[in-house]
């Protein structure tokens, strides 16, 4: 599903954000990505989304070499990937329902389809009764669940979450990760960046640790089979 081979990323100012990263995530996996601030975690996700291009090496997502995507193909490529951010990024002047419907509208989906899917995914994240609310009237956890519904409404095969629980209290965070786990069990591959080591330990999924642009650990934390990177 996601394959990094000898990936190096230098930003324009010469700063080296990633150095010889090799990472393979199979379909259906749930992977945590951890690391200190500035380690290069978000850069990794940006490469997957083709927001940035690798300086060297190849990034393949869904069997697509992101460097070979043409400009006009990028939007269609992104529709197969759902994204969730720490700051939710909801559109403030749209209702919860509209925020989710928006992701479908962008793909020129028929109204019939929108009417069917939006309630389904709002129900999935437990917000069916908040459909008419504005985002500012929701708690952080609820806002994040709206953005999760928006990420899922196009039924992506890959879900990327950049510190989705960073602005949410610990109890709520567990709910969110539970939800991600449920989505993962339905077949969606999940990549989640987090700073919260207790979460990682509690859920025990495969964990990739990054430090100064390099993968320094790959495997379960605390669990047995850690694949040490050479």
């Amino acid at each position: 599903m996601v394959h990094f081979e000898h990936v190096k990323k230098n930003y324009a100012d010469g700063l080296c954000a990633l150095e010889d990263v090799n990472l393979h995530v199979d379909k259906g996996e749930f992977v945590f990505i951890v690391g200190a601030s500035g380690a290069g975690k978000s850069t990794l996700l940006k490469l997957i989304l083709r927001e940035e291009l690798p300086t060297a090496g190849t990034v393949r997502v869904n069997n697509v070499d992101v460097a070979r995507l043409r400009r006009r193909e990028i939007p269609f490529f992104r529709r197969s990937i759902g994204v969730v951010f720490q700051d939710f990024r909801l559109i403030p002047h749209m209702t919860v329902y509209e925020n989710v419907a928006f992701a479908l509208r962008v793909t020129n989906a028929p109204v019939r389809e929108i009417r069917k899917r939006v309630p389904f995914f709002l129900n999935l994240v437990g917000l069916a009764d908040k459909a008419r609310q504005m985002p500012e009237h929701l708690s952080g956890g609820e806002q994040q669940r709206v953005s999760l519904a928006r990420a899922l409404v196009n039924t992506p095969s890959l879900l990327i979450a950049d510190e989705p629980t960073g602005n949410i209290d610990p109890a709520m965070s567990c709910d969110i990760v539970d939800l991600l786990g449920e989505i993962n069990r339905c077949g969606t591959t999940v990549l989640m960046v987090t700073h919260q080591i207790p979460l990682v330990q509690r859920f025990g999924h495969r964990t990739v640790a990054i430090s100064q642009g390099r993968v320094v650990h790959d495997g379960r934390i605390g669990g047995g089979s850690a694949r040490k990177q050479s």
Partner: protein
Amino acid sequence: MRASSLSYLLREGMRSIFKNRMISLAAIGVLVACLLLVGASHLLTQNVNSLVGYLESQNEVMVFLDDAAKGEDLTYVDTKLRALDNIASVTFISREEGLKTWMEQLGDDGTLLEWLVEDNPLQNSYRVVLRDLSRMEETLSQIRNIAGVETISASREMAQAVTSLKDGIARAGFAVVVILAGVSLVIVANTIRLTVYSRRKEIGIMKYVGATDTFIRLPFIAEGILLGVISATIAFLLLWAGYTGFVRWVQEGSFAWAGILQSHIVPFSSVASRLYLYFLAGGVGIGTLGSMIFTGKYLKV
């Protein structure tokens, strides 16, 4: 395009105009002012053309014939004159008619000329009205080449004045349109740039959910077009009211020239539909172009 997409675009455009209403209002104000100036210069051109048309019809060329030309020769000159393309009308005035008119003009003193009837000194002539005075020289030389024509009398100063007036008006009108189109374009482009800037987060979100560049740009183009249509309508209504008032003032006025102006002023109804069409085309064109200039910059993947 789906109906739902169209209503989405209209809603987004309206919402954006309303949300940035101070900027939108300023943009609409400038656009209306530009369109008013363009419209006023158009109306002025129309009126000057109407007056010039009148002056042109007043500008006759007298063509005097050889005394030797008689009977068939006259028919020949007649057909030749009428065959010229720049001729609006041709009237034959025989020497007898000429004398009669002359005598009538003198009134009672006309009898003084009676001794001339026997030995009429006048020539047969044609009164010719040209269509386009700017081609006067060319047409005069064509007339001069017709066998039987002796002399021509025409007022060249008048022709030159009318021609340069028409040229000047056309050139000034063109310059007004070009300059004001440029000003409007800059204004619309900057208004849209501000909306694009204030919505750059939203644009980012759209990109993450896989919106195409076209989809992202369309609401801004819709906003530009809406600005254009609103401005065109306001400018049209203002011009209508203002010009109708002006026409009434001229009709009731008793100043010098009032007579000529009154009979040649162009009524608003005769230019209304064309003017609104120009306004709409200009507004929509400038709105579209203006909104496309800066949106590209914020769309880099």
